[in-house]
């Protein structure tokens, strides 16, 4: 047994990279759910983003173009969900699940010619001075741009939801769509925009997998990351910074268990491999038992469809 083989600094840096796809997808879904819409199709949007981003990056030679294409791809797919649920009043749970099925099939078809090809590399940015700070520099300031983007996005979403008028409207729509409608807000339009934002974020998360973290395209490569993102939103009780916490916790345990195995720690592998899920449950139980119910609350209109009768 040799704990010394695990360098905590390197480990932290890996955790940030491993968690970024979930952070991106989860913060997008948080905005969607804040608007009162439950889109269970995160996995489908992620994998679509992964393939769109990969194809675009390979064709253009630029990862940036790839990420933009991934966001567009994810947003377009989510628009399908938006039209069905917002205009045609279809059930959100079932439509979201169908979206996952659809996205998995679509991505596999689109990606057929791109198996076994390498993506153009995304450079790590080396922030001058900051990156050279001992200890912290290595963890915090030597990643690719998307890691910072994902953290910045959390901050932006938090600030917008909390302080801006747009945030207020969004929350109003999510809490009580009839009242928001009565106040003259375009419920359907706001929800559509939120859904597309969520799709774009999920697409970025998928592209982070196919362009940076793995990086390559293979069918079904998201392997359940979208479901984890959904769980993280619940875990975070719909609060932006807790999404970051939840995603890093989950990603952290996942990476840590592999590190423990590699270091030869004598814990049975079966227990290690289920540890990320058990620890997530455990932390949630502790958090929820310390808190009164109201504070846990999901947006009141979550999952309910809205139809303006007048």
């Amino acid at each position, binding site marked *: 047994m040799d704990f010394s083989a695990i*360098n905590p600094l390197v480990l932290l840096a*890996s955790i940030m990279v491993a968690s970024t796809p979930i952070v991106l997808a989860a913060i997008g879904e948080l905005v969607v759910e804040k608007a009162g819409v439950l889109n269970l199709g995160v996995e489908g949007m992620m994998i679509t983003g992964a393939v769109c981003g990969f194809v675009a990056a390979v064709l253009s030679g630029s990862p940036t173009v790839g990420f933009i294409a991934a966001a567009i791809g994810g947003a377009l797919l989510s628009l399908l969900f938006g039209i069905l649920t917002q205009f045609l009043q279809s059930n959100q749970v079932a439509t979201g699940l169908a979206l996952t099925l659809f996205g998995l099939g679509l991505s596999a078809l689109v990606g057929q010619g791109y198996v076994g090809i390498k993506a153009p590399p995304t450079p790590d940015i080396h922030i001058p001075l900051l990156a050279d700070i001992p200890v912290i520099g290595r963890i915090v300031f030597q990643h690719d741009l998307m890691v910072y983007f994902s953290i910045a996005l959390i901050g932006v979403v938090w600030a917008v939801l909390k302080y801006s008028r747009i945030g207020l409207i969004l929350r109003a729509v999510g809490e009580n769509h009839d009242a928001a409608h009565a106040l003259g807000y375009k419920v359907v339009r706001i929800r559509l925009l939120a859904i597309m934002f969520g799709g774009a974020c999920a697409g970025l998360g998928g592209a982070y997998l196919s362009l940076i973290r*793995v990086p*390559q395209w293979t069918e079904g490569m998201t*392997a359940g990351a979208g479901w984890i993102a959904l769980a993280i939103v619940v875990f975070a009780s719909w609060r932006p910074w807790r999404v970051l916490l939840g995603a890093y916790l989950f990603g952290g345990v996942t990476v840590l268990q592999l*590190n423990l195995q590699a270091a030869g720690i004598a814990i049975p592998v079966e227990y290690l491999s289920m540890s990320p899920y058990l620890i997530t449950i455990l932390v949630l139980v502790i958090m929820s038992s310390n808190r009164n119910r109201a504070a846990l609350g999901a947006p009141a209109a979550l999952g309910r469809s809205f139809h303006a009768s007048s």
Partner: protein
Amino acid sequence: MRITSILAGAALALGLAGGAIAQDKTKVGFVFVGPVGDGGWTYEHNQGRLAIEAEFGDKVETVFQENVPEGADAERVMTQMALGGADLIFTTSFGYMDQTLAVAAKFPNVKFEHATGYKRSDNVSTYSARFYEGRAVQGHIAGKMTKTNKIGYIASFPIPEVIRGINSAYIHAKRVNPDVEFSVVWAYTWFDPAKEADAAKALIEQGADVILQHTDSTAPLAAAEQTEGVIGFGQASDMSEYAPAPRVSSIIDNWAPYYVARTKAVMDGTWTSVDTWDGISAGMVKIGEITDAVPADVKAEALALAASIASGDYEPFTGPLNKQDGSAWLAAGETADDGTLAGMSFYVEGLTGDVPN
């Protein structure tokens, strides 16, 4: 009437009615456990299918089904292929074993070939590759190339095939480098690129500079590429897009010669049920090109090792070898029998950690 007899009747009717049409075309079916685009296991089986088409052209028709779950779905897919007039069906995952036998019993005129299993019948053959022979060569290169003396191994599930590979690689790495250590991570998946990449990174961060893998995606190679001086190997498929480094060589499952030969046997009417376990000598296991990242002398030794395995002069599991607990396994000069190898569930002496369960 039991459905078995209905099916048999249908098969018979098809056999008679279809005889005139089927005469000129032999139909070969493939049941795949993953997508043909996985870049590893299923990809290579599909290459074998394409080789049949290339070899026989108009005289064959091939059909395949990908992503078939093991269990009831597999049984239905095989039945469907048999009903559809297939003469020969390859089932390419261990988990299809009982289903293959069950369907074969209903269609005595259709020939079945089950990969990596151990149950046979009059119309079911089994075939498998001695992948561990390739592992020996891989272990040799790994032992020579490592500077940190730490080799990372990404394993999938604790099954004999995987354990055999770990042992074979370890024995041959140790032989050329007594200080070498293996660090095994069990990913509990055959195919999950993100998890494989994380596992490779964890190993690299802990000082491993050679990554061996028994999972199917190229993600570990992609992870190795990001760190200077880390090397890896193609798994099941050549993965040459990562050559010359980090991919310095590969072990390839080359099913094409076997598939072509078995199809030919069905065409000629000479097919019989056999158990095939072929390695480097028959060309079922191929060592992919060793790149210039490997010094010339190491490359020459590795090729010589492969040649001696191919010629039968050398067996990868040759004593003296002890089990992990120190008990004797093979005496000096003794070689392992196929039965022990097929069911191998223990580490050899020197490996650390436990086989799960």
